[in-house]
């Protein structure tokens, strides 16, 4: 399949794309807070795959996945570098007439329709931003292990081949990745809860 794709067979390229899309999208979506941005960057990665497929030296699935994750990592890094150079300008005026804020407009639906459930959407978006923040604090290897195991559904041996590591090292990385993520999320959740408690008025304050 890989050889056919290298020779430009559209069918083979399509199969490759569909096979690796969940993993690449999952990796990128775990790194950037917005779905629309994740989709743009994912498209970029697969266009790069089409551009460079003739020169890819990968001969098996694991090495192909490794190549794609490398491209994805560089693409995400490029996005963050670009954003650091040119901070995003956002408008404070509503863009549509029905009073939807810029937050709602930019926040692409995750699993809820913002028109029908804007509050739930905002909450989900904020929660996901916390997850992304925690994912970005992991090491690159830890992220790749999580994506390989959880999103692509690879077994430990395949992830080990993909990363050029031993199975035990992959298991250890997986453990540390989930442990760090769990602790970071617990900490962030506590922090968010504390903030919301501090910002909301106490019950007896309403009674005055």
């Amino acid at each position, binding site marked *: 399949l890989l050889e056919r794709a290298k020779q430009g067979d559209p069918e083979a390229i399509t199969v490759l*794309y569909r096979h690796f899309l969940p993993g690449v999208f999952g990796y990128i979506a775990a790194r950037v807070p917005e779905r629309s941005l994740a989709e743009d960057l994912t498209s970029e990665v697969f266009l790069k795959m089409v551009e460079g497929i003739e020169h890819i030296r990968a001969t098996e699935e694991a090495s192909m996945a490794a190549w794609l994750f490398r491209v994805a990592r560089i693409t995400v890094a490029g996005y963050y570098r670009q954003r650091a150079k040119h901070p995003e300008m956002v408008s404070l005026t509503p863009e549509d007439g029905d009073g939807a804020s810029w937050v709602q407009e930019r926040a692409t639906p995750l*699993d809820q329709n913002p028109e029908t459930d804007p509050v739930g959407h905002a909450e989900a978006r904020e929660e996901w931003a916390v997850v992304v923040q925690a994912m970005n604090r992991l090491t690159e290897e830890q992220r790749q292990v999580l994506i390989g*195991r959880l*999103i692509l*559904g690879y077994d430990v041996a395949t992830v080990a081949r993909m990363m050029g590591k031993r199975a035990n090292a992959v298991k*250890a990385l*997986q453990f540390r990745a*989930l442990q760090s993520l769990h602790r970071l999320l617990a900490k962030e959740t506590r922090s968010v809860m504390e903030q919301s408690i501090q910002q909301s008025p106490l019950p007896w304050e309403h009674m005055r």
Partner: protein
Amino acid sequence: MKSRQQRSIDQLEALLSAQTNQKGATPLPPVASEGGDPEVRAMARLAYQLQTAPSLVPDPTFVQQVERTILTHRVRRKQTAIVQGGWPRFAERGRAWSIQLVFAVLLVCLLVSTGVTMALAAQVTNPENPLYGIKVWEQQVQLVFDTSPQQRVEVELERIHDQLNVLPRLTDASQAPKYQQALNEIMAHLDAASTMLKTLPAGPERDHLWSAFAAVKNEVRQCLYGVLGELPWGEQLTTTSVLGQLGASVPTIEQVTIVIMTQPLNQATMTVTGRDLTPTTHLIVNGHRLASRCVFHQSACVFTFPWENKTPPEMIAVLNADGTVAQTTKMVVISMNGKISSGADGKPGASGSNGKNENGTTSSNSNSNANGSRNGGSQHSTVQNPGKPTSIPVPRK
């Protein structure tokens, strides 16, 4: 025995494997169990949440859209490649790489051409060849790193050989400056070689080099004798001088006396004293070779010839059979009948034989040695009594 952390790692892996028991299948929720590390169970739950998080699942519309985009992009690239051919694609993809390649090729070409040029230059023996300069440079660089006198002597002798190759081609009058330069270089290299040879310690190496030096010196002499007859007068004088410096027998003029008798016959007798004059030596007066032969009298060469030309002599030269020459403008002219003609037009002669001294003897006195360097000026001497000349200074011509 496994450590606590290793047990936790294994426990987590077991839970995850149970959740994702089949590749591509929907993950199962974590098994509720009482035992094990609570944190590990929490991690397994987190893993399940991530696996099922809608945020990490691409939208089907997006999947199709990107699929169309990449296929269109693929087709467009293919068409562009067909239209433009292979070269633009190559240039597009590997511009930086191709620049490096070009530099590498240029560098290789430069190295190869330099090597070839130096190899060719090393074989050049003609100093007029543009590559000869490179050869000289190579030799100089070589001498910088190899300062042994033996090596230096060999290089000097090689350069002399090179100059000898070109010398016969420089005999034309138009090449006179180049000829003089080549001659000077030969002498300079000989001097340098000789000086370095003297610094060598006695031994077979030194003897060998001295033999080589003597052979080259002999070659130089042979070459100079070979070209003498073809050279213009000035270069002939210079070459004779160089031959003298190389130890060859060359004529020199020390004194010239001309006795002119107009009565009863117009006849002149010229006595030339000097060294290495031979019976076959020819006389040249004012650039004209006379037929007269030398007769030795008291170690002087005596020439007798008809005095038909009324022009007083200004330059006297001798030419040996081997082509070596000597000249002088210093002479004593004695008129035995006390009268000398200044020429058919009656103008005063440059040597002072201007007809004013009708009762005396006029002598022109200027000298040029065998080296061709002139000294003094023309001098006239008027003698009241024939046979007793007295020199008087006259303005130099």
